[in-house]
């Protein structure tokens, strides 16, 4: 994640609007929905990515991860057929679920951005894709580690695996587009079109790949025992809870970083504009402009 200097940090200018701590931080998403043309004064909004609420989520995530370790590795029994490898499922299945949730967030936020043009949606679209990519890597890694002892191979051209691989490539492409150093509005528009097509593309890829594989062989992936029960079910549920909290925590924080990045861009732009205006006000346009640029 990019280290952004928050406007309210000790080295920055004092906030012109009184920051109200956690309340203003929690209001980030609300003010994100505000008028795009109206620029909030520098320093308004959250000055940190953390707040009391997210700290609570963070601690809960850590606690539930500890619980997941306890349930996944100690309490739940080894599977009759898959042995200890089944324990990877408690991470793998929730990761895959949250991967798709992140993609849906990106597509939804991209559509909303194209419609409403408010910067919060843009930040949310980027957030969804980035967090989804993290979960994509977790999904692919745990899936490969699971496949080696179970299928005897790290990779097989199963429909779900292939879809996830193509989806990862789509996410990488989307984020590459987002990283470009061009005009932010143009970049957001282009990224929003790609983001809007993300879920439709995944659906097409999934359909075609499933069809493709079904012509050659029956599904490789033995379904997880649907009668999963007892401690294993509890462990899977704990996995969903723990990774869900991690997902939430990452999403909130990444969203705030994206939001602060946008604010920082604006602060820089405003400072540059103010410097130019100060020059013009001096009426001293003939002299070397570089000498006149002083922090306002």
């Amino acid at each position: 994640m990019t280290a952004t200097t928050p406007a309210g940090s000790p080295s920055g200018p004092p906030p012109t609007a009184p920051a109200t701590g956690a309340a203003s931080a929690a209001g980030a998403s609300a003010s994100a929905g505000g008028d795009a043309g109206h620029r909030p004064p520098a320093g308004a909004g959250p000055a940190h990515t953390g707040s009391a609420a997210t700290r609570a989520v963070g601690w809960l995530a850590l606690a539930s991860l500890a619980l997941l370790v306890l349930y996944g590795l100690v309490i739940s029994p080894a599977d009759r057929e898959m042995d200890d490898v089944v324990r990877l499922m408690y991470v793998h299945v929730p990761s895959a679920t949250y991967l798709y949730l992140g993609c849906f967030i990106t597509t939804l936020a991209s559509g909303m951005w194209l419609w409403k043009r408010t910067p919060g949606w843009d930040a949310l679209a980027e957030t969804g894709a980035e967090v989804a990519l993290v979960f994509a890597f977790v999904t692919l890694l745990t899936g490969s580690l699971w496949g080696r002892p179970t299928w005897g191979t790290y990779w097989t051209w199963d429909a779900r695996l292939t879809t996830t691989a193509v989806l990862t490539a789509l996410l990488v492409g989307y984020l590459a587009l987002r990283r470009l150093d061009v005009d932010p509005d143009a970049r957001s528009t282009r990224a929003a079109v790609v983001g809007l097509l993300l879920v439709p593309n995944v659906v097409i890829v999934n359909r075609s790949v499933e069809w493709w594989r079904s012509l050659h062989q029956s599904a490789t992936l033995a379904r997880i025992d649907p009668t999963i029960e007892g401690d294993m079910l509890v462990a899977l549920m704990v996995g969903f809870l723990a990774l869900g909290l991690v997902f939430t925590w990452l999403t909130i924080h990444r969203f705030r970083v994206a939001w602060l990045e946008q604010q920082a861009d604006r602060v820089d732009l405003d400072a540059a504009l103010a410097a130019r205006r100060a020059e013009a006000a001096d009426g001293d346009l003939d002299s070397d402009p570089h000498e006149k640029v002083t922090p306002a």
Partner: protein
Amino acid sequence: MWRDATLVAGRDLRVEARSRVTVNQVAPFALLVLILFAFALDPEGPVLERATPGLYWVTVLFSALLAIARSAKLDEADGVRDALRLSALDPAGVFAGKAVAVAAELVALELLLGAGVVVLYGADPAGVGLLVATCAAATAAVATAGTLYGALVSGLRVRETLLPLLLLPVLAPVLIGATRAFDAALGGVPADGWPWCGLLAAFAVLYSVAGALAYGTLLEGS
């Protein structure tokens, strides 16, 4: 809209006819790729024959990337983008025109590559109807999706590297569908190929609509 599309397609094809980039550079490149595949896979053995549909379409996709990048680049120089914006041409028509021009170039490439695989790989074009239908649907799919993604990266300094990264995963279903359909037409049961042809057509329709809707936003927004 259709009149605008004709205008834009005519312009793109006229530029192509005068600059001859596709004829002089993209087409030889495509044939070269076919020859390189023969070096990589033993041309006397059964591997090349079995892989012919896949190699054909991979070559088409790689050549299409060049044609699409070229088509997007036409609008970058000399403020053409601004001129298009000011011209009151329907953005959907501009999109359709550019896609048609790319499709025309792709059809020429596919014919050339078709002759190439018949001569070089000894392919036997049996199910002609299915082959033609597959080419038509796949060309429309590649041209529409390519024109949209070409507009997405146009004007960016990194467009040459970003376009394949964005476009190739999107075109993965086209590669699968076209290859399966060609497989069916060349060696298998042609009836197996028609559903794939349908998939390609659906893809082309989806991207035609998406491109026509998004092109105005992209033209304005950059």
